[in-house]
Every structure is written in C-alpha cells, then in structure tokens.
C-alpha cells in the first residue's frame, strides 16, 4: 500500500520541475514504476504457476485414467472377494492394492501412535533442556533417512532378523485360529517379504512425523493449563493425561492423520519389502501390493494402454486420498492454535 504513493509522487515532482521532455530511460522507469511493475508481475506469475502446477497434476491424472475409469467404473475401487489384476487379459481391479495400503498403514499407525505420543510427551514435558535438542534431532533424523535406505536395510537386515521370526510365531500361534486365520494365515515367505514387513518399516517412518507434530501441539498449550493442574495437586502424569492430552486431542488426531497420509504415499521402502504380488488373499503374513508400490513396480513395464490407464487411476485415488487427509489434518492441527488464541 505504501508503494503506490511512491509511484504517484514521481510524475508530479517532475512536472513541477518543468521537465517536459524526460529522457527515454526516465520515462521507461516511471512506466515500470522503477521496476516494481516487473517485480509484481513476476510475483504473480510465480504464484499462478504454483497453483497451475497442482491443477495440472490433477488434470493429467484425471485425463490419463479416462480409459480405465470408463471401462471399469466403480468396480475398480470396490472391495471384491476375488479381485482381478491381470495385465494379460487387460482386466484390472484396484482392491488388492487399496487393501494393501490400508492394512499396512493401519498396522503402522496402531504401532506408531502410542510410541509417538509418548515421545512427544517426553520431549515437550519431561526432557531436561540439555537432552531436548539432541533427542529431538535424532527423532527428526529418523524422518530424514532416505526411503531407499530403509528399504535396503529392510531387505538384508530387518526382514531376516526381526520380521521372519515374528511371522513364524504369528503363523504358528494365531494362524490357525478360526476368524483370525484370515489375517494371519501363513506361511510367510522365507525372505520375510510381506505386508507385515511393510507395516513394520512404515512404523519407523511415520513415528517421527506424528511425534514432531504432536510435540508442537503440546508445546502450543498455554502454560497456565499446566500450572493450574499442578496447583490443584495433580501429579505431572495426571497433568499430561487429564489436562494436556484432552486439550491437544484434535491436534494429535491431526498429527495421526498426517502420519496416515505419509504412510499411504510412501513408495520405495514399501516396494522393496512387500513382495509385489497381486491377489494373495488378506493375510498380513503374505506378500502383496500397496497403491504406491504397484505403480512403482509395474508402470515402467506396462505395455497396453489399459494397464497404463489403470495404474494412473490408482495414482488418482492416491492423490484424492492424500488431499482429503491433508486437509483434515491441517484443519485439526490449526484448531488447537485457534483454541489457544481464543482463551
């Protein structure tokens, strides 16, 4: 707002001074508002480009999946007991991949949430200042390790050492219990590649996301809440459990949903440990696919247009799901800040 004044002053001054025939450069400079016209155009163009980029992504995957959307309709998405993903016959249903994404992400969340919230509590409420920064950095480094490195470590270390033994025990114990056998039927492949392996690796990958957002939520809670609770005689734990967690609940929920978005979109590590097989039932001990891993694994080799189009439709599902999750999560996290400002 202040800048427009500057631009109106210049012509007035020059006319008062009687400079009727300014040089070409001076006139050009005035017309450009001494460069501000270019500057503002550049800002606007860059901003529009960014918005356009998102619209183009949506448009490309919408048009790219036309073939598959018309051919298969809603059947592509709906859960069927017997789903087909058959490039040879050009018949595609995404349910096995959707199921794989859901089950691996949900197991990962179920394992990661208690841990992450505990880490957030420790880092925001308990850790002595000397330890706070290094521990915080270490937790964030867990998120910084590239996904492929998790995958490599997963294949050669984590799977044989941890996942295969767990898988054997699960298959032997609950694998034959009626009802549970649907989820825990063995045998797990010797290499350990399975939905369970993907879920466990994802646990490591989403923990830092949930922990650091939850920590920020807890730290945003006003000090007065803690002081009031402690002054009433509550122990520190009672303060955390009965005051801070309820206060920050929506924000922590937002953090969990953000973690869910991260888990669903995670590609490389999952592709390396899940085995990449379609249609192998519902057992977590068996190999499978996720939405992201089926794209990573098959897109380069897709020959028919229908196969390509079906994979792009899976990308469309991923895109829509992550948009919805991100919107909800951000709204929830922001609601804690609104509450704090309101009080």
């Amino acid at each position, binding site marked *: 707002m202040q*800048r427009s004044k*500057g631009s109106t002053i210049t012509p007035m001054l020059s006319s008062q001074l009687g400079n009727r025939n300014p040089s070409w450069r001076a006139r050009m400079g005035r017309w450009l508002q001494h*460069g501000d016209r270019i*500057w503002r155009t*550049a*800002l606007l*163009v*860059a*901003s529009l*480009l*960014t918005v356009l*980029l*998102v619209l*183009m*992504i949506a448009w*490309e*995957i919408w048009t790219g999946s036309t073939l598959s959307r018309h051919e298969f309709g809603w059947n592509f998405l709906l859960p069927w007991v017997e789903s087909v993903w058959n490039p040879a016959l050009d018949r595609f249903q995404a349910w096995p991949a959707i199921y794989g994404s859901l089950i691996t992400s949900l197991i990962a969340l179920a394992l990661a949430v*208690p*841990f992450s919230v505990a*880490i957030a509590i*420790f880092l925001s409420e308990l850790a002595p200042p000397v330890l706070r*920064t290094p521990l915080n*950095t*270490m*937790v*964030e480094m867990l998120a*910084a*390790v*590239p*996904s*492929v*490195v998790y*995958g*490599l*470590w997963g294949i*050669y270390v984590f799977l044989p050492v941890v996942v295969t033994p767990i898988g054997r025990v699960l298959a032997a114990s609950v694998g034959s219990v009626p009802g549970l056998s649907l989820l825990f039927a063995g045998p797990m492949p010797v290499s350990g590649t399975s939905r369970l392996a993907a879920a466990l690796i994802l646990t*490591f990958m989403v*923990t*830092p996301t949930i922990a650091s957002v939850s920590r920020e939520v807890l730290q945003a809670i006003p000090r007065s809440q803690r002081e009031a609770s402690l002054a009433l005689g509550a*122990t*520190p734990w*009672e303060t*955390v*459990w009965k005051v801070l967690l309820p206060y920050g609940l929506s924000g922590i929920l937002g953090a969990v949903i953000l973690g869910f978005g991260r888990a*669903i*979109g*995670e*590609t*490389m590590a999952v592709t*390396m440990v899940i085995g990449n097989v379609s249609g192998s039932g519902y057992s977590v001990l068996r190999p499978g696919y996720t939405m992201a891993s089926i*794209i*990573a694994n098959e*897109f*380069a080799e897709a020959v028919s247009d229908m196969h390509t189009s079906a*994979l792009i439709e899976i*990308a469309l599902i*991923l*895109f829509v799901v992550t*948009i919805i999750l991100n919107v909800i999560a*951000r709204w929830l996290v922001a609601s804690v800040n609104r509450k704090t400002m309101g009080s």
Partner: protein
Amino acid sequence: MPQDLFAQIDLPRVYRRRRFLNDVALSLTGVAVALAVIPLVWIVVYVFLKGMQNINLDFFIHLPQAMGTTGGGVTNAIQGSIVMVLVAVVVAIPIALLVAFYLLFHPQTLLGQILRFSTDLLAGVPSIVIGLFGYAILVVPFKHFSALAGGLVLAMIMLPIVIRSAEEMLKLVPKELREGALALGAPEWKTSLSVVLVAALEGIVTGVMLAIARATGETAPLLFTALGNEHYNVVAYVRQGISQHQSIFQILHKILAEPTDALPLTLWKYAQQPYPERVAQSWTVALVLMFFVLALNIGARSWLARKRRQTRG
C-alpha cells in the same frame, strides 16, 4: 516436583498409588524415546560398517563395471544426482522465493489463500504421483527420459518445502525494516531483495538445505523421468565436447537430454540384483547418500539453532 517432601510423610495409600502411576508412566515415555532411537542407530551403524568395506577412490570416479564383475564405481549416479539437484535448485528456488514474497504481501487475498492451500497440497502429494505426472508432461512429449525431466520433478518436490520455510522466515523480518527502506525511496523490488531477503537469508538457506537433502534422497519421482543410465558421465561429455569444438549449448544439451542415473536410483536397482558385488556396492551408495543427507540436515538445524541463540542474546 517436590517429591522428596512426599517421601518423608507416611502417605495414605491412594497418594502412593498416584505417585507410583506417575513414575511408571513417565518412565515409559522415556523408554519410548529410547526405543525410537534404536532403529536409527541400528540403520546408521549397519550402513556405515557395510558401506565402509567397499569405499575407495574408484567408487567415486569410475563408471559401473559389467554385472557380475568386481570393481568399478558409481560416478554416473553421483554426477547425475549433482546435475539433477542443481537443475532443481535453479528452477525451484527463484520461483519459491517469489511465491513466498507474494504470500508475505498478500496473505489474506483470495489468490493468497488458494496459493497456501496449493502449497500444502503439493507437499502432501505422494512423490510417486509427482513422478507419473513428470512422465506424462516431461517425458512423453519429448519421447525420451532425461536429466532435465528428473531435475524438474525434483524441483516440484522442493518447491513447497522452500515456499513454506521462506514464508515463515520472511514473516519474522520486522516490518520497520521494510518501511524504512520504502521511506528512503527504494522501489519495492529493491526493498524486498536487498533488505527483507537479506535479513531472512539465514533461515531461507536452512530451508533450502533441508529441501536439497529431501530431493537428493528421492527415488520414486525419478523412476519414470531419469530412468537410469550406466554410462552417464558429465566429465567425459565436457571433455569430448571441447575436443570436438562443440558450443556450450551442445554440451549442455548432451548433459541434460540423456537418461540419467542418481544415487537413490542406483541404490534401488543394485539392492535387488542377484550379484553380490552389486549388493555390496549398494551399501556404499547408501552410506554416501545417508552421510550427505544427514550432514545437510544436522548442519542446517544446528546452524539455525545457533543463529537463533545469537539473535536472542
């Protein structure tokens, strides 16, 4: 907590139980932190030990050998990563800074809000989807995979990260600085670039470093854009170009228009090959990649923390 005070009194049972619960629950949160650190330490130490076995000069300066033979290096991947990250930096950072300034000047306008929403969406889109998009608009029309396509896709990954951190940092610059410069008659662009930007520079550089670390480790978007190329060698292209008296554009074209390898891409391919030499090399690639990414992360964070302490003090 004045817990020692409690210890001296003979407390009723309910107090003791509350204290016990308090101690147990709080120690459990400490245990959770310790458990979370285990996988990090495990990965870092294991990758370090495995990777160090194969590290030597050849690894950095030689092209890969034929499969099944020992020796050779991954200079193609190292050079490819450098080229593509450079392309991403050159494209993403100016745009991201302009967008951040736009958000600073117009936080509440309609376009400002749409822009913030788009940035959040872009940050949330899975990188594999961005890779598919890059394939559709950067590879299909030109009919070949290229370093340029890979670099531009990485730019899309970096864009939202840099926009967000730059906006935060620009917002922290006191308004008086800007007003002072404008009052002295400086045009808005000059005020923005030589006063506001400079004041926020440290924070912005930190954000850029984190974005570079993220882009360097990304594999999924490169699968269908850079593809991989075991003969990619910028040094040889430049040398050959000079000896044949090619123009700089011809050499640049050769560098940017070829299919290209990258460290994470090489790691992904080598890890799944049945040749033990390649798997052994993939651990070294992991070590180089992880060292670079973690060093950038830790460096950026500690630098920013130190600057913050200085300004506060």
